[in-house]
């Protein structure tokens, strides 16, 4: 059913030689009190007027990026027997979440020149301008950033995770972890032929705290004094209530 719908969309649109038409299983993610991650299905079709070219290799790459923010990466060293943060490198822009999915291994799906042009792979998505004078191995800090975030499921490289059928229909699934940063998640789909980008489709998925979570978060940032007083009042009431309830149960 979905496929027919997508095909219908394919036929209804004006076009370039080969063009991406996209669908998303959801275009917003709500972080609620019981949020424990979310899956997003990204699917679409390749629209073309001419027959499928046989002489070159078609691949699809999906890049999903959370809002970028500056990050300080610190390195510990042993000082007087204990481990202390010693060196620090500021990374100017690092996405809070980044997933790259491709229909083939990245080296076949994308030429390096194209990666430099479109900033598709994870190292390209991170912008670091310079390290302080005392740090000579700044790359190690960027590598550590990628390693730590990858370990937390925040940076994902999923090769062969995009299903490409008949060079026309594609689909891929991204699993978002529970510890997400709010904001627009930039979603880009690249169509490549022999590693050269032939079409780009860009959209955005909104990730937002909702309900009580949103309200508490906003209040804590915008009205911190009121939030603080409220926290005290709620905590006192809860503590008192719980002990009163317990005493009642004892009788």
């Amino acid at each position, binding site marked *: 059913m979905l496929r027919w719908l997508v095909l219908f969309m394919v036929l209804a649109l004006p076009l370039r030689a080969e063009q991406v038409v996209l669908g998303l299983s959801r275009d917003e993610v709500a972080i609620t009190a*019981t949020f*424990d991650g979310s899956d997003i299905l990204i699917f679409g079709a390749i629209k073309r007027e001419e027959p499928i070219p046989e002489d070159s290799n078609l691949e699809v790459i999906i890049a999903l990026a959370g809002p970028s923010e500056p990050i300080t990466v610190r390195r510990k060293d042993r000082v007087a027997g*204990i481990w202390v943060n010693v060196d620090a490198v500021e990374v100017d822009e690092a996405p809070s979440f980044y997933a790259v999915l491709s229909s083939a291994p990245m080296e076949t799906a994308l030429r390096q020149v194209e990666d430099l042009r479109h900033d598709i792979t994870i190292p390209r998505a991170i912008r670091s301008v310079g390290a302080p004078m005392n740090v000579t191995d700044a790359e190690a800090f960027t590598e550590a950033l990628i390693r730590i975030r990858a370990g937390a499921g925040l940076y994902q490289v999923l090769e062969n995770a995009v299903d490409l059928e008949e060079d026309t229909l594609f689909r891929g699934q991204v699993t978002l972890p529970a*510890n997400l940063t709010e904001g627009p998640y930039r979603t880009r789909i690249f169509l490549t032929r022999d590693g050269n980008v032939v079409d780009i489709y860009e959209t955005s998925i909104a990730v937002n705290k909702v309900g009580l979570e949103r309200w508490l978060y906003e209040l*804590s940032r915008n009205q911190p004094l009121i939030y*603080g007083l409220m926290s005290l009042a709620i905590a*006192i009431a809860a503590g*008192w209530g719980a*002990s009163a309830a317990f005493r009642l149960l004892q009788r």
Partner: protein
Amino acid sequence: MAIGDMLIYLPIAEVSVNAFLLLGLGGMVGVLSGMFGVGGGFLMTPLLFFIGIPPAVAVATEANQIVASSFSGVLAHLRRKTVDLKMGTVLLVGGLIGAALGVVIFNYLKAMGQVDLLVRLSYVVFLGIVGGLMFIESLRALRKTRAAGGASVSERRKHTWVHNLPFKMKFRVSGLYISVIPPLLVGVFVGILSAIMGVGGGFIMVPAMIYLLGMPTKVVVGTSLFQIIFVTAFTTLLHATTNFTVDIVLAVLLLVGGVIGAQIGTRIGTRMKAEQLRILLAALVLVVCGKLALDLLLTPSEIYSLGTAGGH
């Protein structure tokens, strides 16, 4: 979703944690604090580190929780008139100054990326000292009771340097005429600890009140609770307004578990001998201290860490 993995997203800490784990932790620390008659902040904060709550959030939230868990205690003591309000106020003034100082230090080190180290190191030092002293003392007490009879050594009131300081004041409820400087300093010190470690500071204040200020034991607990509740409330507000690190959802979950646990703990506590309780608590404090110390001493699996930028 199974009940066993009821994950809850904490809005300020920005992590998902099992709600039952938090209730259980609160309950466990509650049982201990009921058994031993201690606040439990010094156990809860390190446990929160262990389950992955960011230290800054753990400290600020724990301060909030202590206010709530001490509240009914203060009311009970006020009713029984076992609070020296005048002494409490002097300690409180010191405490507020200390808390403000502590938050300044905390925020300064946070900007330098050293706040984790500061908090952990403070814990290792204080838990080590308190746990060690308690352990030695209770061992001695156990041996004494075993040596039959147990002739209690009566304590003489000594005239120490504390009594020679200026700005003397009369504290009628405690029956003291001493300088305000020592209680003020004790207050400042406890206030700093409250802001940096997220503890009430009773484990430092109570011995200081008895041994340093010479206050009668019957008003010590009520007066210290009186000081603690205001100082930790002030600390909570300072952290909430400067660091935005008070997580009310986390606090309420810990609190509900804690209050129920404390009631159970009090019941267990009355059935056990004081010396046995003390030695158990000492052992527990030393275990937590040892775990924190190992984390500082052993080569970490990841020597890099991420922090928000813009602190310089």
